[in-house]
């Protein structure tokens, strides 16, 4: 029991005193996962919209791939990207291995199918005649897409929540492509893994508490945005 109490007490003081290392790790995690989620939105929303509205040969195959991608094992992503970024690998010259940028890329790869899948589902759930009505109101192609995405904003917010949740809590790929370099690539998850292995339970608890609080706060904000307006 002492071990737990000591750990909790230590973590309390780390958080209250504003330990520089703890906050640096938190900020890095937030920025990396935030950037990855944003990139995933930039790729996944247009891709999902296209998949939802267009019919083309092989569409079912692409959709199946997207849906499989929603459950993509992070370690597989980590492995493939590690090989690509390896010093002697095809993208070795870019010097990305063991950097935060590599972590952002890995997390983007993990989050993009999630955003794409949610976008397809969200837009396909809309009444197909709504497209005709919006066009009939005088919408241009771009205005139509914008209004459809606005109509699908609930599932889109769900996409943000799911994508951010997946990448901020991910460990495998981050260690593989980013390693756990103190002051450079440590994240809340990877630093917790390391601290636990070393028996530094105070730091591990502190990082975990922050991780939980962060996930809760970010989700709370998006949920509030999602649930605005009267419901039936």
């Amino acid at each position, binding site marked *: 029991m002492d071990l737990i109490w000591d750990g909790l007490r230590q973590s309390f003081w780390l958080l209250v005193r504003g330990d520089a290392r703890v906050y640096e790790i938190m900020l890095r995690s937030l920025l990396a996962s935030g950037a990855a989620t944003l990139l995933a939105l930039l790729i996944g929303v247009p891709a999902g919209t296209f998949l939802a509205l267009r019919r083309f040969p092989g569409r079912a195959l692409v959709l199946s791939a997207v849906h499989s991608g929603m459950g993509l094992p992070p370690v597989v992503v980590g492995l493939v990207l590690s090989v690509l970024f390896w010093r002697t690998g095809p993208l070795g010259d870019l010097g990305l291995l063991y950097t935060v940028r590599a972590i952002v890329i890995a997390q983007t790869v993990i989050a993009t199918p999630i955003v794409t899948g949610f976008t397809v589902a969200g837009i396909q759930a809309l009444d197909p005649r709504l497209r005709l009505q919006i066009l009939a109101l005088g919408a241009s192609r771009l205005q139509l897409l914008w209004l459809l995405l606005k*109509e699908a904003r609930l599932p889109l917010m769900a996409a943000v929540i799911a994508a951010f949740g997946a990448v901020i809590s991910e460990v495998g790929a981050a260690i593989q492509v980013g390693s756990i370099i103190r002051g450079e690539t440590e994240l809340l998850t990877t630093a917790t893994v390391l601290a636990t292995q070393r028996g530094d339970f105070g730091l591990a608890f502190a990082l975990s508490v922050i991780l939980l609080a962060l996930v809760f706060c970010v989700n709370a904000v998006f949920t509030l945005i999602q649930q605005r307006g009267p419901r039936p």
Partner: protein
Amino acid sequence: MTARLTATGLRVVRSGRTVLEVDRLEVHEGEVLGIIGPNGAGKSTLLQALALLERPASGEIAFEGAPVRGRELAYRRRMAVVFQDPLLLDGGVEHNVTLGLRLRGVPAKERRARARRWLERFGVAGLAGRHVRALSGGEAQRVSLARAFALEPEVLFLDEPFSSLDAPTREALLSDLDGVLRETRTATVFVTHDRDEALRLSDRVAVLMAGRVRQVGPAWEVFAAPADGEVAAFVGVETVVPGRVAGVSDGLARVAVGEGITVWAPAPPVPAAEVLVCLRPENVAIAPAGEPAEAGSVRNRLPGTVVRVVPAGFQARVELDCGFRLSALITGQSLRELALRPGDRVTAAFKATAVHLIPHAR
């Protein structure tokens, strides 16, 4: 009459099948053009093609004589469409009514003024601040109509706008819309499968069957003088029998129908020997055999036997065998007074002018 919208050689293909083929159709300035036809005839497809929502495989649509091709968005912004379902977007009523104007870049003040004016005109000004999810079906359709009229369209399209409403709501809305259309004289294309709605709102009617326009003309004419047997059956002329014109005198034709039965009718505009004899059931009166059915100018009196009596709301449809099948629509009261039963001998009476002859080449 100038044409606001003209479709020429219009052909729409879906999954390799031609679903619509219209040689020529015009929507005139200030008129309501009803498009009627059975389910699956291609009415909505025609509306969507005319409203520039569906690109035809071939053919041309011209707005006031100018082809729209390549400038669809600009012309679509001079039109408005109301569908069967209100299809409101998530948000408030005012947000919906002003949306089309916002897409056109109309200033906010003007948008609000127009929204208020048209919500008021359709009796739903009090709902401006409501969320669309809090509306009843009738209210939502009124908002949808206000949204279309707020655009002040040069051509308005209505695609069965009343068919998902209950009868009293539908009646109230029909009467409001009728008033607004008479007042604004907006050129309107009105798609419906309901013959009564079509007769009530339309100046002209086009009958669409299997993707082709079978007849276009003034509403009364289409209903009173259907171009062929199928149109006749659809517009509610339940008795359609082949006959042979035996002679014409004083504008009246003597038509032989079946074995030794003669029907008097106005002579067809083009001389024809073989004709279809069309008779609406409302125009047939029934009397017990031997009694005079109606005093005065009733030229046609045919003895017959009751085959079937089908009550239909406040009325009853009586099918008679007069040597050919003849259908009559009588009031519930007449039905009770006559106490008709299958097998009863009766006399069917109808004026010569109630009969319409369609030249019919076999």
